């Protein structure tokens, strides 16, 4: 009798498996990206069948390219829980290099390179936990609304989501010039131009602040500040600060070494590190863990007048102006002579 037990157990298991497979087949959504016609071996670039899943109906239509679907298309019933191509969740779609949208004459990529988060400051770590910060940790409005609705505000949400964790930085930012003035009765006319966290810090590839990351951040002055403050960037050309920094000198000060980072204030503001009253502390004090100059006085601090004004001071120099005018005069005279000679020969 006991010899029949394994046979009975095996038969029961087989029946259960067939029953489960049938149930799974019946429940499988017809447009699931996992429902590849037939059980073909996995091919890179093609959707991978879920191991253990029943074969799909051969008549199941292949879905249209979802990435360029026009707005208003009925959302796809994507299953965000099942791994596909070794990816899961958002990366099912956003891990696809071909994920683009066409806006006017532009192709906008929504591809997020694999591993970019893991290698960033938001990857797995002591503060972020073993999984790191999940996509929905910053893309808050997508946390419970998959697939995406036509949400134009998603970028602002993502760029401002940092405040959820970085409260001190957000607090400082809120008191500075970059914050949108939301006081009652006042309208901030510059609100559209003001940066959010992500505008300065970037998005998926925010570097860890180790030595390499700090060096990388240090060299990103134009990306962080200069592309908005072009005039200030162009005028940052004095000998040992600006000229050196804009030419990639690792020991020259970046914008934020003098102007501060999150609490950005105009120099006229008495709290600003570049305010005349604070220059001694900014140039001669302990700034960002380093002391640039020692025992400074007013005569020394007068050099700060050159940092963003070297070109202007050069233009004001009478000898320089005289030489430039002389050069222009000689050049014009030679040009006139050349024109005259040319006219002789028709």
């Amino acid at each position: 009798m006991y010899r029949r037990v394994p046979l009975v157990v095996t038969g029961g298991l087989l029946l259960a498996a067939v029953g489960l497979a049938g149930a799974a087949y019946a429940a499988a959504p017809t447009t699931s990206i996992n429902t590849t016609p037939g059980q073909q071996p996995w091919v890179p670039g093609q959707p991978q069948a879920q191991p253990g899943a029943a074969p799909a109906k051969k008549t199941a239509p292949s879905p249209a390219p979802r990435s360029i679907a026009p707005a208003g298309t009925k959302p796809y019933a994507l299953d965000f829980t099942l791994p596909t191509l070794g990816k899961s969740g958002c990366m099912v779609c956003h891990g696809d290099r071909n994920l683009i949208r066409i806006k006017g004459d532009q192709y906008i990529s929504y591809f997020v390179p694999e591993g970019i988060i893991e290698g960033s400051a938001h990857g797995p770590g002591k503060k972020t936990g073993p999984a790191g910060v999940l996509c929905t940790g910053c893309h808050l409005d997508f946390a419970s609304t998959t697939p995406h609705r036509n949400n134009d505000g998603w970028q602002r949400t993502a760029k401002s989501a940092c405040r959820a964790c970085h409260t001190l930085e957000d607090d400082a930012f809120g008191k500075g010039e970059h914050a949108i003035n939301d006081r009652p009765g006042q309208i901030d006319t510059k609100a559209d131009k003001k940066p959010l966290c992500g505008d300065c810090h970037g998005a998926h590839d925010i570097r860890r602040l180790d030595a390499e990351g700090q060096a990388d951040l240090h060299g990103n002055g134009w990306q962080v500040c200069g592309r908005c403050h072009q005039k200030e960037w162009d005028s940052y050309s004095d000998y040992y600060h600006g000229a050196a920094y804009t030419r990639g000198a690792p020991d020259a000060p970046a914008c934020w070494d003098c102007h501060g980072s999150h609490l950005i204030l105009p120099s006229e503001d008495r709290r600003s590190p570049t305010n005349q009253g604070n220059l001694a502390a900014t140039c001669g004090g302990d700034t960002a863990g380093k002391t640039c100059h020692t025992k400074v006085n007013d005569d020394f601090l007068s050099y700060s007048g050159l940092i963003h004004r070297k070109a202007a001071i050069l233009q004001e120099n009478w000898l320089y102006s005289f030489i430039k005018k002389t050069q222009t005069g000689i050049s014009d005279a030679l040009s006139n002579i050349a024109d005259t000679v040319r006219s002789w020969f028709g």
Partner: protein
Amino acid sequence: MILTHVNVWLDVVFFTLYPIILVALGVHFLGNILTGRAYRRFVKWQWPEHEHPPIKALPKFLHFQHLACIGLLVLSGLYIRFPFFTGGRPFMRGVHYFAMTVVIVNLIWRLWFAYGSRVRDYREFVVNRRDITTMPQVVMYYLFMKPSKPHLGKYNVMQKGTYILFVPMLILQALTGLALLEFWKLPYIGMTPSDLLVGWWLGPMIGSTSLAVAYARIAHYVINWLFIIIVTIHVYLSVSEDFAAFLDFFGLGFLDKRHAQGKAGHATAPGHTPMPAPNAAVDDARGLTGSDLL
């Protein structure tokens, strides 16, 4: 006020002055052509004869590496002030420090050679009374107002003056350059070179160590330009006045056969008047020159 405007003024003055000097040297060479000096030298290949024995390889090499290091110092120093390409700061700074070390070693060795060695060739550089009295004639020769200049020794008075000037300039340049090292603490002492060289005396006088360093930087920059100007004139004169010796010094040619045999007399060369009166000091020095012992 001082730091902002002085820095800009120095740039404007020296970047204006240097082209003027180049033009002046060009005009001077035109004078050489018009007076026939260039024809005699570069076409007929009549160059001054040299009374001293041929210079050996070691002094030539020392001169060459010194020149190369001065060139590297000027190039890297100007890059530090005016970075003309991206990403070169650490490398150029390294070049500057390397060349600085070589030049300082050269300076110490040359001072020892001049004053401490058996040769003691400092006598060849001493400006004596006859140099002073004949200086107008030397100047007039270079201004094409006289066909020849008096021959008093290995170097004429203008050469002596220039070479003597090089020593304090090099010392000052080394000291002001070292005074810029604000962030590197010397082992055992615990002070930075800035503290050691200017911080303890100039800093309190003007109220700021960093201001003292800034003044040292200005002095360093001015002396740099003096080097550029003097070396340019030195190169021009060595080419226009004695191109054969110039080539010989860089291993690109040879002086005349008589010179190679040590029989030539510099005083009899074109452009030289005979030596006026004997001078014991010069003769003593000539009896034992540096190149004899090298």
